[in-house]
């Protein structure tokens, strides 16, 4: 079978890619390490969002809700109560996946589908943003700030530290989430997700519990997004409702997985590798040239080109180039 040689190639190339990522901080400085960490966070959210959209077929345009709440939970627990993020992350995961379940439950129970579901997710995210902008406890529009890292800081306890620390920590988180999602989409649950995505009624006729399966996707996706938000809070040190809960945040997060390839595991990572540096470059070029908004224009153009010319995204093309595609038909659900 050619299947096993393809698998071997996949593992080999994947390992090389990981090895490069592990060694990269030795040669690049803090600025680039931070940018790469931003890529990992974008990829992490992209993986989570893609689980819901690409594999389970639910369009969420309100993932900022989970990102922002996750960020605020981790930051508030650390800053207000002095609790380690080791506790903050699990709590953040539970809270955000709970929120995902609530939004999903309301949407699916009331039969809110398609466009309506997307609007519902936006409504919840915007509602949360406005709430946080009027809530004293979280600092209103003035934002929430984490104290500066103490000199005797021990990164493994506070989970705060240098750019290099965040680099490895977020890389590990992203890798873990990627492996988990990879396992999930290949599992029994993954089959049910794809069945419901392709045709909910037909899937139900085959005995698939569409409601439960959809809820699981929403909950897991939201939880992972919350973790990503937590890392963003620790790394950034400041949070504003607009910068983590705003609609632009939700929109920005869906660009990478779409550019990379919906319904593929590697798509969100490839997408983040393309989109984040492009955004940085465009921002700097825009500032240098006095052209505010260049990065937004570029984002829009890229998204436009992909959705018009290559709706499957970049990954399927690259996978073919690298001879990574397994089955000939594995276009959307290949690795």
């Amino acid at each position: 079978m050619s299947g096993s040689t393809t698998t071997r190639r996949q593992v080999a190339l994947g390992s090389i890619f990981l090895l490069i990522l592990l060694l990269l901080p030795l040669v690049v400085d803090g600025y680039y390490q931070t940018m790469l960490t931003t890529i990992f966070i974008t990829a992490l959210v992209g993986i989570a969002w893609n689980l819901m959209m690409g594999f389970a077929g639910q369009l969420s345009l309100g993932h900022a809700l989970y990102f922002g709440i996750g960020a605020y939970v981790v930051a508030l627990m650390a800053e207000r109560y002095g609790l380690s993020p080791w506790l903050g992350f699990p709590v953040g995961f539970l809270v955000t996946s709970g929120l995902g379940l609530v939004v999903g439950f309301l949407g699916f129970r009331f039969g809110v589908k398609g466009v309506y579901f997307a609007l519902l997710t936006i409504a919840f995210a915007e509602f949360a943003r406005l709430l946080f902008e009027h809530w004293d406890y979280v600092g209103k529009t003035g934002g929430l700030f984490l104290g500066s890292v103490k000199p005797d800081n021990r990164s493994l306890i506070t989970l705060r530290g240098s750019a290099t620390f965040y680099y490895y920590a977020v890389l590990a988180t992203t890798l873990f989430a990627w492996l988990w999602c990879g396992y999930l989409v290949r599992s029994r649950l993954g089959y049910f997700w794809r069945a419901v995505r392709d045709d909910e009624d037909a899937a139900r006729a085959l005995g698939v519990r569409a409601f439960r399966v959809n809820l699981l996707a929403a909950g897991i996706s939201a939880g992972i997004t919350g973790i990503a938000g937590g890392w963003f809070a620790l790394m950034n040190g400041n949070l504003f409702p607009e910068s983590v809960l705003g609609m632009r945040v939700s929109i920005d997060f869906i660009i990478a997985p779409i550019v990379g390839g919906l319904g593929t595991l590697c798509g969100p990572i490839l997408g983040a590798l393309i989109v984040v540096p492009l955004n940085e470059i465009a921002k700097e070029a825009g500032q240098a040239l006095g052209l505010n908004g260049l990065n937004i224009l570029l984002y829009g153009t890229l998204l436009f080109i992909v959705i018009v010319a290559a709706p499957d995204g970049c990954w399927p093309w690259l996978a073919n180039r690298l001879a990574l595609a397994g089955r000939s038909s594995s276009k959307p659900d290949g690795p």
Partner: protein
Amino acid sequence: MIELYAGVAINGLMIGAVYALVATGLNLIFGVMRVVNFAHGEIVVGGMYIGYGAWALLGLPTSVSVALAAIVMFGFGYCFQRLIGNQFANRPQHAQFVLYISLALIITGGLAMAFGPDPRSIQSAASFSVYKIGSLRVDATRLQAALSAAGVILALWLWLRFSLTGKALQAASQNIIGGRAIGIRIDHVFAIATGIGFACAGIAGALIAPLYDTTPYLSADFTLIAFIIVIVGGLASLPGAMLGGLIIGLVEGLAAILFDPSAKSLLSYGLLIAILLFRPMGLLGKRRAL
């Protein structure tokens, strides 16, 4: 005290009429093509810049810039639908959504590059004139904007009801396949609908340009307000858009003085969530459109 509330209510209703025009455009596009225009607020802001540009560069009054915005946005909408939108007619819903998101980003980015992030405002003597009705003082620019918006909506309704193209549009919204069967050129009809939808948003933008400080980043707020209105009123229902616009205008105005000026949208989103869950077809919508 009563006068204060009455004043706020009237102000809310007036801005609500303009919202209704924005929402009517969104609703027309949705009604005919079953597509949600995520770039609607961007078109409104485009209209605002046309209003601003016409005033700042050429000193043209609002009445002229409104006509200009209508023509430009109609042309833009028509061409966009003809060249790109129609290719997406049979694509999955999320693809259509993403197409409009990309359009929204392109417009916002383009406007930000062209005009910069700083607020632009139209300052003319007219901005300070008021009408006095009894003890009520009504801002003249605002009233003119509201009446013009209502006039455009009325004209659009009449056109949809009595003109041949309008009837074709309605037929297409009832049944695309049936419409094709009776010889409606669906590509052309879709493009007309998009053109009119964009024109509504553009006109609304030019009308409110004297009332707001225009920045490229206002667009998301307008898009969201339009979404809220059409969901509250009923997707694909034109009277629903009118009713929804007035309700949201009123709610925002009253919320601003009853609670806090910045809390107004909170109430709108609460309303939106409640409607989505308990009456997803909206107040005046008949059936689930999807």
